[in-house]
C-alpha cells in the first residue's frame, strides 16, 4: 500500500530533554492511524513537526511526497487539522468561521459558497449557520471545527486528541464523522488519543509511544496478541493488601502487575480455573476483595504490559512530572 506520510528517524530535543526519540512510521493511504500514549509521551510534539510548526532536530517528514521542511506551505495544503483545543471564533457565525478558513486554504471564490454549504451539512449545522459560534455547544463547536478542516478536501486529516473532554454522545458522533470521511472521501486519518477504547474501535493501526519512543506498532488485534492467549484477570483490594495479593498471583503461576488499587495479570489458557484458585487463596488470607473481573485484553493491557503503567488522563505521578518538565523547557 502507498505511504501518504513518511516519518523517518524523527528526533526532537528541547535542550537536553529528548521529547521525540528516533521515531519512524509510515502512514498508509486510506487508513485510520492512531498515535497512542500518555500525556507528555511526545504525541503533540510529533504532530507539531508533521504540521511544520516545529522543526525536527533530525529526521525527515514527507507528506504526500512533499518535504515538510522544504515546502511547509505546500505540504500543509494536503492536511486538514483538528487541534487539541477546539478552535472556532466565537465572535463569528458558523458560516463566517468556515468562510474565513476556506479563504485561508485558498479555495477559489467560485467554489467557496458551495464548499461552505457542504461543510455545514457535514457538521449538521445548516440550521445554525447564522448563529455566533460562541453560542454553540461543545459538540457543535467540535463538529464545526472538523468540518472547517475538511473544506479544502485534504487527503490527510490530522486530529490531535479530537474527543478529549467530550461526552460519550458527542464522542460517538465525531467517530461517525471520521469513519464517514475515511470511507466516503478516502481521507487518511492520523489521530492522537489517550483513549484506548477510541483507538481500539476506530483505528486500523496503532502506534504506541512512550518517553518519545515508538514502543509498539500494529493493528489492534496484533497488539492484543502481544499479551498472549487468554483473558485478563483483575482483582481490586485495599491498598495495604496489594503486595499480598500479588504474592498469591505469583504462587498461582501468573505474572502480576500492581496498579493503584488493583492487581492485574494475563490469565493464560486456563483463566477460569485460575480465577477460582485466586479467590480461594485470597479469601484464605482474609483479604477483602472489592471487585474481581475477567475481560478480553484491551489496548490498555497492551500498554500496561509494554510500559508497566496505565494510560490515564488523570495526572499520575510520572505523567505529571514529565508534563512539568516539558513546561520547564519553555515550549
Amino acid at each position, binding site marked *: 500500500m502507498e505511504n501518504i506520510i513518511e516519518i523517518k528517524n524523527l528526533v526532537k530535543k528541547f535542550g537536553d530533554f529528548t521529547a521525540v526519540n528516533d521515531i519512524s512510521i509510515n502512514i498508509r493511504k486510506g487508513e485510520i492511524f492512531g498515535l497512542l500514549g500518555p500525556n507528555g509521551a511526545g504525541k503533540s510534539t510529533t504532530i507539531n513537526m508533521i504540521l511544520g510548526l516545529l522543526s525536527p532536530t533530525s529526521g525527515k517528514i514527507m507528506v504526500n511526497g512533499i518535504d515538510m521542511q522544504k515546502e511547509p506551505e505546500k505540504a500543509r495544503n494536503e*492536511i486538514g487539522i483538528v487541534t487539541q483545543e477546539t*478552535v472556532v471564533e466565537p*465572535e*463569528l457565525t458558523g458560516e463566517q468561521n468556515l468562510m474565513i*478558513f476556506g479563504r485561508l486554504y*485558498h479555495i477559489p471564490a467560485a467554489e467557496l459558497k458551495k464548499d461552505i454549504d457542504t461543510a455545514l451539512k457535514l457538521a449538521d449545522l445548516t440550521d445554525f449557520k447564522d448563529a455566533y459560534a460562541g453560542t454553540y455547544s461543545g459538540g457543535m463547536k467540535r463538529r464545526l471545527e472538523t468540518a472547517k478542516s475538511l473544506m479544502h478536501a485534504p487527503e490527510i486529516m490530522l486530529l490531535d486528541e479530537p474527543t478529549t473532554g467530550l461526552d460519550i454522545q458527542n464522542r460517538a458522533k465525531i467517530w461517525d464523522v471520521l469513519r464517514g470521511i475515511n470511507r466516503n472521501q478516502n481521507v487518511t486519518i492520523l489521530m492522537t488519543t489517550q483513549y484506548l477504547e477510541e483507538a481500539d474501535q476506530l483505528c486500523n493501526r496503532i502506534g504506541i509511544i512512550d518517553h518519545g519512543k515508538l514502543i509498539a506498532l500494529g493493528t489492534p488485534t496484533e497488539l492484543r496478541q502481544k499479551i498472549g492467549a487468554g483473558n485478563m484477570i483483575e482483582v481490586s483490594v485495599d491498598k495495604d493488601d496489594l503486595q499480598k495479593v500479588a504474592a498469591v498471583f505469583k504462587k498461582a503461576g501468573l505474572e502480576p502487575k500492581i496498579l493503584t488499587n488493583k492487581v492485574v495479570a494475563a490469565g493464560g489458557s486456563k483463566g477460569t480455573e485460575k480465577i477460582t484458585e485466586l479467590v480461594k487463596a485470597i479469601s484464605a488470607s482474609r483479604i477483602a476483595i472489592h471487585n474481581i473481573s475477567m475481560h478480553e485484553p484491551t489496548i490498555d493491557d497492551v500498554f500496561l504490559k509494554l510500559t508497566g503503567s496505565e494510560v490515564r488522563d488523570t495526572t499520575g505521578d510520572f505523567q505529571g512530572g514529565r508534563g512539568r518538565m516539558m513546561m520547564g523547557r519553555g*515550549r
Partner: protein
Amino acid sequence: MGLLGDTYTLFLREMLIFKKNMTMNIARSLMFPLIFILVLGSFGSSPKNVPIAVVNYDNGLGALRLINLLQSGNNVEVISATTQQQAMALLSKSTVAAVVVIPTGFTQSGGTDGSIYVYLDNSQPQSTAVASADVNAAASQLGAKTAVSSVGKPGIISVIANYAYGAGSNYISFVVGGLLVMVVSFGAVFTAGFTMLSDRELGNLKAFLTTPINKFAILLSKIFYGTFQSFFSAFVGLIIGLMYGATIAAGIVGFFELIWIIFLVGFGFSAMAIALAARTKQLQTYALVGQTIIMPLSFLGGAFVPTALLPAFLLPIVTVNPLTYAVNAVRDVMIKGFLPTATLVSVSAILLTFTAVMTALAFILFRDTSKQLT
C-alpha cells in the same frame, strides 16, 4: 493569493468581529476622549474674577483710567495694595495671580508711552493667562507699554513670557491635540496587541499557522486592524473635541493633515504593539510592558506637558520619541495654524520609518513558529 490576499482575509475576519461588537467599540471610543476632555478641558476653561493686585504709585488720571478699564470686565478682580512689597507678598502666597505696578509719573507721560510693571505667578497658568491678557488689553487701550517679568526679578522689564499656549489661545485645542495622539497611540498598543494575544490563547494563531498561508499575513492583518481601530477611536475623539470647542487653526486642510498624522501614529504604534506581542504569551505581561512603554512616551512626547519644561536628562528620550514630532505637528496644525510642508514631510518620514522598523522587528520575532506553540 499570496501575502496580500491572506492579509486581506485575516483583516476581513477582524472587521467582521469589529462589526459584531460595534456598539461596544463606539462606547469604548467615546469613553476615553469624553473623560479626558471633561477632566482636562475644564482646567483650561477661562477662570473668571481672577484676583490681581494693583499698586498705584501714580495716583493720576491715567492710572485711574487704567484701573477702571481693569475693573470693567469680569475677567479680573482688582485688589488695591498700598506698597509693592505688600502686593508681592500676596503674589508669593498665590492670593493674587498677578501684580500690576503703576509707577509715579505714569499720568505725566500722558498715559501713552508710560510703562507699567506686571509680575506674574506661573504656578497657575490658566489664571495667569487671563490676568496677563486682561492687563495687556487694558494697557494697550491706553497705549502703555507693558512688560512681564517673573517673580523674583522685580523691576526688570523683560520679554513677555512664552507660555505653552498663547495667552489668548484656546486651551481646549491644546488638550484635544494631545488627546488625539494619546488616544491613537494607546489604542494601537492595546487593541492590536490584545487581539494577537487572545488569538494565541484561543489557539487561533496556531490554527492560522497550520493553514497554507504566508505567516506574515497574520502580523500584517493585525497591524492594519490596530491602525483601523485606533484611528477610529481618535477620529471619534476629534469629533468630540471639535464639538466641545476645539478649533483647527489651519482650517480644512489642517483637518486632513491632522487625520494623516493620526493615521501614521496609529500605524506605527500598531506595528510596535505587534512586535511586542510577537513573543509575549501572557496578557498581563503584555499589558504591563505596553503600559510601561506607551505611558512615558505619550507624556514625554509633549501631549500634555510642553517638552520645553522637561528636565534635561529626559531630552534624549524626547528626541528619539516619534510622538514628539507627531504632537508638534498636531499643535502646528491646531494652534499655530500652519504646518510647513517640510515639517509634514519629515514627520511622515519619521513615523513611516518607525513603522517599518517595528514591522521588521515583528517579522523577525515571529519567524520561528515553534515559539508560538503554547
